[in-house]
C-alpha cells in the first residue's frame, strides 16, 4: 500500500502575526514554522499503517525550500521518502492541482491531508484534490481503518459523527482523533540520522494557475478593555448583555 501524506508548513500558533509592504505580505521574520498540527496526526496514523500493515509512506509539500527542515522532520519521524514540488503555494486550488498531477503520476492508495492548515484555515486542498481526481473524500476525519482495498473512516460533523466506507484510493482530511496527542512521534537521534540517508526529491511544478489572490491583510481593531462586573452584582451583567450587547 502506498500512502501519501500532504504536509503544510505553518507558523506556530504562538507566533506574532505581522505584515509588511503596506500590509500586502506576511512578515516571516522571527516566525517559528512547524508541521501543520492536523498533518502531524495524519503522519503518525500513516506510520502505524507502515508498522502494522507494511505501507510505504511518502510525504509531499508544495512550496519553497523554507519547508525543507519540516520535510526532513517527517522523514525522521518515519516517512520513507519526501517530495517538494518547487513552487510558491498561492492558493488552495493551485496547490490541489499540483498535488493531483503528482498523485496521478505516482499512484497512491491513500492520501492523508489535514482537516485545515492553521494559517488560512481554508479546508480547501484535500477536498479539491479529491474532486480533481474524482475519488472519495472524507474530511474532519477522527478514525481510519484500512482493510484490503476498503477504507472505513469516521468524520466529525456538526453535533455528531458519521462513519463512511469507500474503495481506495481515497483522500482524507485528518485531525486529532486519528491518533491522540500522546501517540505523536517525536524524532529520536536514530531517526534523525536515518533521515539524512532517505530520498528527498525536489520536483518541477505544473505551474498550475491560481484562481484567488490575497491582496491585503488587516489586523482586528484593538479591543476595548473588558467591562468588569462585581461578582455580587449579576443583575448588572444581565442588563449589559441585554441592553448594550444585545445578545440575550
Amino acid at each position, binding site marked *: 500500500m502506498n500512502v501519501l501524506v500532504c504536509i503544510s508548513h505553518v507558523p506556530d500558533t504562538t507566533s506574532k502575526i505581522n505584515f509588511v509592504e503596506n500590509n500586502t505580505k506576511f512578515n516571516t521574520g522571527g516566525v517559528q514554522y512547524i508541521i501543520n498540527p492536523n498533518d502531524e496526526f495524519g503522519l503518525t496514523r500513516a506510520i502505524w499503517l507502515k508498522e502494522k500493515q507494511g505501507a510505504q509512506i511518502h510525504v509531499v509539500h508544495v512550496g519553497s525550500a523554507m519547508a525543507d527542515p519540516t520535510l526532513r522532520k517527517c522523514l525522521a519521524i518515519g516517512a520513507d521518502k519526501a517530495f517538494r514540488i518547487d513552487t510558491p503555494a498561492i492558493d488552495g486550488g493551485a496547490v490541489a492541482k499540483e498535488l493531483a498531477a503528482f498523485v496521478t503520476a505516482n499512484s497512491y492508495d491513500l492520501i492523508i491531508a489535514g482537516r485545515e492548515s492553521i494559517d488560512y484555515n*481554508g479546508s480547501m486542498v484535500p*477536498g*479539491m484534490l479529491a474532486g480533481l481526481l474524482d475519488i472519495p473524500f472524507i474530511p474532519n476525519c477522527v478514525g481510519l481503518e484500512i482493510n484490503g482495498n476498503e477504507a472505513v473512516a469516521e468524520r466529525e*460533523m456538526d*453535533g*455528531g*459523527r458519521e462513519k463512511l466506507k469507500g474503495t481506495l484510493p481515497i483522500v482524507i482530511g485528518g485531525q486529532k482523533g486519528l491518533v491522540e496527542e500522546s501517540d505523536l512521534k517525536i524524532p529520536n537521534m536514530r531517526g534523525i540520522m536515518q533521515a539524512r540517508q532517505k530520498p528527498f526529491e525536489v520536483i518541477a511544478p505544473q505551474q498550475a494557475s491560481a*484562481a484567488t489572490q490575497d491582496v491585503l491583510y488587516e*489586523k482586528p481593531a484593538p479591543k476595548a478593555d473588558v467591562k468588569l462586573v462585581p461578582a455580587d452584582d449579576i443583575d448588572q451583567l444581565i442588563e449589559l448583555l*441585554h441592553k448594550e450587547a444585545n445578545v440575550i
Partner: protein
Amino acid sequence: MSVLLFAETENNTLKRNAAEVASYAAALAKSLNTNSLAVAFNADNAQDLGQYGISKVYNIINAPEQFDANVYAHALSQYISNTNATHIVVSSSADAKFLAPLLAAKNNAAYVPNAVALPNKLEPLTVKRTAYTNKAFVHTELDAEINIIGVGNNSFGTVEQFVDCVVENDSPEHTASNLDQVSMSKETGKATIADADVVVSGGRGLKGPENWHLIEDLADVLNAATACSKPVSDMGWRSHDEHVGQTGKPVSTNLYIAIGISGAIQHLAGVNASKVKVVINNDPEAPFFKAADYGIVGDAFEVVPALTEKLKAFKAQS
C-alpha cells in the same frame, strides 16, 4: 449571471444557518443587479427563503435522505450551469466545508471560506475573510468565471426582506455516491456548537466532570450549546466533540461564555471570532480577561449558579 445559494436542510427542514446565508446571497445579488436563486435538498419549507430575499428555489425532492457531499456537488453543478450562476454562496458548516471544495474542483471555480462581510469590491470580486486562526483578516480576490463564497457563521446576520418566492420541485438524475454510510450518531434536540447563538464553555477551573451541571444548567437557560477547553476533553471529563479552540472546533457565535478557562492563545485562536465574550474566572490576571468584553472575577461555584437563577428570572419576565 446569477447568485446561487446552497440552502442546507436537516430532517427535511431548512437549517437555521440558511437564513443568514440567504440574506448574504440576496444582498450580493442586489449589488450585482441580478437574481438570487437557491438550491435545497428535500426542503419542506423551501418557500421560507423568500423571507430573506430569495426569489426562486430549486428544491430537489429525490435526493438521498442524508447529506452526501459528492452527490450534492454533482447536483449543484447542474444548476450552476443551467442558471448561469457566477456567484455561489454557502455556509461555513461542516457539511458546507465538505461540499464546497468538491464543487470548486468540479466547476473550476475559485473558492474562499470564512468570509466576514459582503464583497468590498465587485470587480475584481474581493472578499474579506479571517486568516491566521482569527488573528488577522485577509482581502482575497477571486477571478474565476464561477466564484464560491463561504460565509462565516454569525458574521453577516439575518436580514428579513420579503419577496415572492417560487419553489420548483425537481427530481434530477443523481450520480452514484462514492461512499457508503456505515453508521451515524447525532445528538438530537441539543444545540450544536456550530449552530447555537450562545455557547457556554468550561475549563479546568471547574475541577471535575461532576461539576458540569453548572455549565449545563446555564446552557439550558440560554438554549446554548456546551463546550470545553482541550485539557477537559483530554482528561475525559467531557467528550472530544465539545473541545473548542485551534485544534478543536471553531466557535463563531454571538455570545461565548468562558468559565474557569485561562485563555491560552490556542484556546483564544479558535473562539475569538465570537461577537461577545464573557469570562468568569477567579484569577483577575487570567489572560482571557484581555480578550473579553465582559467579565466577573469570582468563584465559578458561586457566580455560575447565581447567574443561572437570575437569568431564569429574566427569561421568565421578558
